[in-house]
Every structure is written in structure tokens, then in C-alpha cells.
């Protein structure tokens, strides 16, 4: 079944909603459109499979740091999760099953890379140019995620490296790693999962750590057959389990809010974990962070610290500076002969790649609008970009809870917006600049006093150009749904919009 109208010429389709991406965001949007009886949409996917981050990140040890029953759609609970924290391949399968079971496959255009998107004010439509032709739609939803385009630091001499080089999200499975001398660049969430795996077979492993991380215990375990059977037979028990996890994680927002007693307890839990697992005081010192807990993502692992104590593993407590042939030289001047370099250096987040592709009616890109950092009303819509919705856009990241919860709140908002527009003569939804400014100012106020803006805190949550917190939602997750999960037309109606101009 092809949902699009008759193509005007090959490769062109006109639909109501064009969605970019088929990860958690795009699939949630598509599934809810279908469940609400809306069939006129396409999902544009540059790769040949769904699942975004979980399709790309195939490195050894890839797994989720948010418990499985919460890191899944509320409308598609899954009694089959094998473990408290899901291994990556299981999430990939869950999202493939979702795309299939929700009837989304006929709507997905695989191998379709978006090259440009512009608002056509006369036609009141978005024109989306892709590698597979042009799509037009009244609404454009970008659902390209926070972790889609890998970030690679410019390293002098890397081109001349004699061994193999790749990023953790573009794993080269052709390169044998057994018995090799491997350098891991970075010590964040990916490295913490990867290092224990590589350490098992590498002859030598060097971890280049720019800054130490807080690592807390990972209370992982397999679900028993009896538990899974209960979840199958009694879905309420599964919903209760999900709620328990949600509220447990939600309570930890107080750590980010820097409530002294609660932050102290969390910090000592992390430092006690380090003390228990690393006996060598010198190594322990190099692994002790010099900033507040929660500033960067708090990592969870029971195997990372022990891996660093192995004889074949070296913790280099400074960044990779440059490469000379087969030698990797750290900022502190230490030299290592290596066969493979794996970059666990994260993703482009402060300036999301889609922002360079999306243009307003005058041809100005979102990226230019966001020269001082990204911002949006309700974390979803941008003044001057009518009928555009951004899933996982500005101020939607969480340091303490599940992003899937945020995505679902955004999808509900967008559904409400679509319904309202349709009921009001296809009203074009352009949010008032004043409403957006008010929203962003309040968020910045709300960020004061949080650990993200504490002294000495540098993280990917903060835009380096403005020093503002643009990636993180600086509040409880439930507050996001309360504030941003229900569409209200007031900031989009003519009176409010003209008042702002």
C-alpha cells in the first residue's frame, strides 16, 4: 500500500506529513499518526534499516543505560526484554518489530538522504529534496535524534596513521582486534561499555581520557521466565514495573538540582564504587573527576574500572594530541605504538546536522537562526519556521530519565497541533517569537543552580558559543509532559503572532 498521492513525476510525492528519521522519534510519530487514522505521511531514512542510533552502534558491548521497560514505547510494552538493561541488538529488534507491527514499512523510504528542506510560503508546504527525489508536505517533522552524526575531533597526523581508524558508531567489523594494540579515544558512555570488551582480547589497550567520569554501579540482571510470563499474562504488572522505574529515576532529578544532601549521597555512591573497584591510589586519583556529579552524563558500569586495572590496559589521563605514523602521542607527551584507533568521541549535538538543511521561506537556514545556540518553543517549534516540528530538539535531553518519555510527549503535542490545524482550515502554525523567547528565558532561569551550570562544568549539554544549556531539559521529566505534551493554539494564533512583531 502506497500512502502517497499520485506522483507528479517520478521520485516526487506529496503527503500531509514528511518525517525525517526512523529511530525512536520517527517511529513513535509514524505509529501514532497511523493509530489516529492519518495515512498521508512518509518516513525518510538515509540508511537501509530502521532504529537510528541502535542500528548504527554495533560496537562490542553496546547496551542501554536506561532500564528496558522504560526505554521502550508506553504504547508497545514488551514482556520479552531479557535483561533489566537491554543489549543493543535487542533494542534494534524491538524497533524493527515496531515498524512492522505498526504498519510503518510501506511509509518508509529507505536509502533516502535528505539534502534540503524549505518552506514554500505560497504553497504553504515544505519542499524536501532528497537523494531519491522531492517530497512535499504540509508538515515537516525532524526526528533525527541527538546521537546520529558522529563527532570526530581534528587530530594532526591522523591521515597518515598506518593502522585502522574508525568511530564507535561506524564500527568496522572487518578489522580483527584479537591480539592487537588498540587505542580508545574518549572515556564517555560508549568507551565505558566498549573498553571491558576490547580488554579481553587486545594485546594492549590504551584509553585516552580527557576528563574522568563518575561511574556508578549497574544493577543489571536477567528477567526470569516467571517474571516474563507474569508480564505476558498481566500487562498491569508490567506497567507497574515501568512506573516504579520511572519514579525511581525521576527522584534523581534532585541530584541535578544540586540539593546538598541528595547530591552528597549520589557523589559518595560513585566514589565508593571507584574505591571498591580500584585499589591503586595513583590510578584512582586519575579516575577521580574534578567537577560536580551530573555535570556530564553519569555512567553506569561494574566492568569498566576492573578492566582498567588489567595488565594489558593503560589509562592515559590526557587527550590524544597527534599521530605520527603508527605512534599516538597524548597531550601529556606520552607515546604509544598502536595498530587500531577507535574514536569514542560522541556525536554532533550543539549544532545538529539537520539545522543546516532546513530553511525558512527566505532561504535562511535553521543553523543560521541558531547561530547563538538552538532554541524552540515548547522545545518543538521555531518562530519563522511554520509547520515544522523538531523531535529531540532543543532542551529535550535528560540526565536522569528516559528520552522515550520525552519523545512520546512531543508526539502527543504534534498530534494535537495537526488536529487543531485541520479543524481550523489548515491554519499554518508559526509560533510567536515572543512566546518562544518567554519559554527559553524561563528555561534558562530554571537552569540556574543546577549542576550543569556549576563551576568547572563543561559538557556537550552546553552550547560552546553562548554557554547556555541548550540540549538538556533542566527539570523533572514529568514537567516536560505537563508543559509541552498538550498543544495549545494561543502562541500560534494571529493576534499573538502579530503582537510579537
Amino acid at each position: 500500500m502506497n500512502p502517497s498521492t499520485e506522483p507528479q513525476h517520478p521520485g516526487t510525492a506529496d503527503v500531509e506529513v514528511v518525517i525525517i528519521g526512523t529511530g525512536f522519534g520517527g517511529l513513535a510519530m509514524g505509529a501514532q499518526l497511523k493509530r489516529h487514522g492519518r495515512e498521508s505521511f512518509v518516513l525518510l531514512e538515509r540508511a537501509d534499516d530502521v532504529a537510528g542510533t541502535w542500528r548504527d552502534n554495533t560496537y562490542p558491548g553496546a547496551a542501554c543505560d536506561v532500564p528496558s521497560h522504560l526505554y521502550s514505547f508506553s504504547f508497545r510494552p514488551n514482556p520479552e526484554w531479557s535483561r533489566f538493561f537491554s543489549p543493543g541488538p535487542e533494542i534494534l529488534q524491538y524497533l524493527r518489530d515496531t515498524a512492522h507491527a505498526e504498519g510503518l514499512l510501506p511509509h518508509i523510504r529507505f536509502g533516502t538522504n535528505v539534502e534540503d528542506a524549505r518552506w514554500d510560503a505560497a504553497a504553504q508546504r515544505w519542499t524536501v529534496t532528497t537523494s531519491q527525489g522531492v517530497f512535499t508536505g504540509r508538515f515537516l517533522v525532524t526526528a533525527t535524534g541527538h546521537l546520529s552524526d558522529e563527532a570526530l575531533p581534528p587530530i594532526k597526523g591522523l591521515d597518515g596513521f598506518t593502522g585502522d581508524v574508525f568511530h564507535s558508531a561506524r564500527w568496522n567489523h572487518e578489522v580483527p582486534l584479537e591480539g592487537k594494540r588498540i587505542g580508545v579515544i574518549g572515556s564517555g558512555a560508549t568507551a565505558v561499555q566498549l573498553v571491558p570488551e576490547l580488554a579481553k582480547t587486545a594485546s594492549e589497550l590504551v584509553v585516552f581520557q580527557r576528563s574522568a567520569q563518575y561511574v556508578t554501579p549497574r544493577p543489571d540482571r536477567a528477567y526470569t521466565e516467571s517474571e516474563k510470563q507474569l508480564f505476558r499474562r498481566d500487562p498491569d504488572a508490567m506497567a507497574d514495573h515501568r512506573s516504579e522505574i520511572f519514579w525511581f529515576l525521576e527522584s534523581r532529578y534532585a541530584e541535578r538540582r544540586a540539593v546538598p544532601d541528595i547530591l552528597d549521597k549520589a557523589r559518595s555512591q560513585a566514589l565508593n564504587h571507584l574505591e571498591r573497584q580500584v585499589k591503586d591510589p595513583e590510578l584512582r586519583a586519575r579516575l577521580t573527576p574534578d567537577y560536580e556529579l551530573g555535570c556530564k552524563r553519569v555512567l553506569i558500569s561494574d566492568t569498566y574500572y576492573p578492566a582498567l586495572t588489567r595488565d594489558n590496559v593503560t589509562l592515559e589521563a590526557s587527550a590524544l594530541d597527534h599521530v605520527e605514523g603508527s605512534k599516538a602521542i597524548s597531550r601529556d607527551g606520552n607515546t604509544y605504538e598502536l595498530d587500531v584507533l577507535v574514536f569514542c568521541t560522541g556525536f554532533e549535538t550543539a549544532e545538529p546536522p539537520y539545522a543546516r538543511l532546513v530553511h525558512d521561506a527566505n532561504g535562511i537556514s535553521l543553523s543560521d537562526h541558531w547561530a547563538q545556540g538552538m532554541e524552540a518553543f515548547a522545545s518543538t517549534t521555531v518562530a519563522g519556521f511554520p509547520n515544522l516540528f523538531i523531535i529531540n530538539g532543543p532542551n529535550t535531553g535528560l540526565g536522569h530519565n528516559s528520552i522515550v518519555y520525552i519523545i512520546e510527549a512531543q508526539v502527543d503535542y504534534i498530534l494535537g497541533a495537526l488536529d487543531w490545524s485541520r479543524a481550523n482550515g489548515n491554519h499554518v502554525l508559526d509560533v510567536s517569537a515572543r512566546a518562544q523567547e518567554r519559554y527559553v528565558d524561563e528555561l534558562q532561569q530554571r537552569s540556574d543552580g543546577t549542576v550543569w551550570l556549576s563551576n568547572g562544568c563543561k559538557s556537550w549539554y552546553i552550547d560552546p558559543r553562548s554557554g547556555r544549556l541548550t540540549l538538556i531539559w533542566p527539570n523533572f521529566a514529568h514537567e516536560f509532559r505537563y508543559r509541552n505534551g498538550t498543544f495549545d493554539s494561543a502562541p500560534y494564533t494571529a493576534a499573538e503572532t502579530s503582537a510579537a512583531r
Partner: protein
Amino acid sequence: MSRTELAGGVVEGTITVDGVEVRYFDSVADHFATGESSRHPLVLVHGTGGSTRAHYGYLFPLLAGRQRVVAVDFAPPVPTQGPLTLEHLERQVVAVLDAVLPDRPVTLVGYSLGAVVAAAVAARHPQTVRNLVLVAGWMKTDAHQELRNKVWQRLREERSQALGDYMAFCAFSGPFLVASQALGDSSPALTAFEPNAFTDVQMKLNRTIDISGLVPSIAATTLVIGCTHDQMVPKWHSKALFASIPDARYTEITSGHAVVIERPAQLVQIIDQFTDAPSRDAAGDIVATARP
């Protein structure tokens, strides 16, 4: 009276009531006091054997970002005044209201025994208490509570080693104890709580509570919060308050009596959304909690 400024702009002060010093905390900063989304200050009243720190250590700082928050620490009255009565505790709350928030309408929040005190204060001071939140409260002690209280008293008199475990068993829900272990939180505030002489007189007071004549006169817009697995003040007590207060709505948290420890973030959510629009849900509504 005394006033000391603590971290984060919070003021700690004392006032004298019935010859004893009563401590209070005041977040001072008046967020949203005016404008479209104006909010009354929140006044927090703790439960048996508690304190602002023990019962509202989580809620106070997180709610203080939304509106001014004041909390009262109950003080034991001097022994010459006879046994502790509900009126002693009511006077302590009213004295703090008069001293810190003179002539200002408030949202009064009470937890456990604090909910009993808050309900009584609300009934007698309708001009001050505009909104009322009763968490795991009750209006008339029943046989089930008397039995639990009697076991507690016996263990206490015998200086039993089992008293700490018994209190944890009564306070926390089974699901919470099991889940805390699964989630790796090895210390869900099970640290032995040491009862003192003031706890003893509060426990004695708990055996004789009866404000059932007063509760129907409460005029405040009221939210009653029951706790599904509460074994100390079972949820039927909250249902009885809900039934007796004219402008009351009811909601339930999946938790034991120790809701301030088990589901503090959900309690913040429910109180915050109530204070944002107290009459959003109509009187008589049983409000389902949102599923995440």
C-alpha cells in the same frame, strides 16, 4: 524569635509558642506570587517523629522553585502543660503562619499526623487556608491503627531489637523494598530511626485522634492523597477524608506510608500540579495518576 540565613536563601527561624521554641524554615523567594499563574505560599507540616529535614528534605527544595515554601518543626510542649494535644500542634502551625506569612492565604500541606493537624487548622482558619493537601492523613483512629500502635508501644517499652525492623516493615511498601534492592539502592532510608520522648507522646496522641466533627466544615479547595500500600494509615482513611470534605478531590500513589521517601518526585508532581490549578479537577473527582 530568631532568624538565620542558610544556604540557598533559606531562612531558619524560631518563635515561642506555649513557652517552647518552635523552629521553621522559609524559602523566602516569592516565585509566581503575582501574575497569571499566581500561587499561594506552601506551608509544610510533617508527621509523627519527623521534622522538615526528615519528611520534607526532598520536597522542600524542589517545591521552593515554584513558590515560597515554609515548613514547621513541631516542638514538645513543656511537661507541666499536661499531655500533648492536637491543639498544641495546631497552635504551633498557626503561630508560624502568623509570624512568617501574616494575612496571607496559603496552601497547607500535611503528611500523616501533620495532615491531621493541617485539617484541623484548615477547619478553624478558612480565611488563611485556601488550599489544603492531606497526604496519608486520617480523621478518626480505628481498631487497625490501635493494634499497630499497641505493638509498637510494647516493643518500645521492652526496648526490643525488633522495633527498627517493625517500623520499616510498617512504613515501606513491599514493592518498594524489593525494587530498591533490584535497582541497587541498598539504603532506602532504612537507617534505624531512634524514637525519643517526643515520639512517645505523639504516638500516644495518635491513639486518640478524632476530628470527624471538624472535617466537614473545611472550606479549602482540598486534595486528598492516599497511599495504595499504606499499612500505618491505610488508604480508607484518606477515602473517608475525601468523603467528608466538601471541596475535595482524591488521588492515590502506589506507595507505602513512607511516600516522602518512596515516591518523592511523584509527590512533587501531584502537589505542584494541584497548586498550579487547584480546581482543575472537580470536587468529588477521583483522579487517576498518569502512567509514564
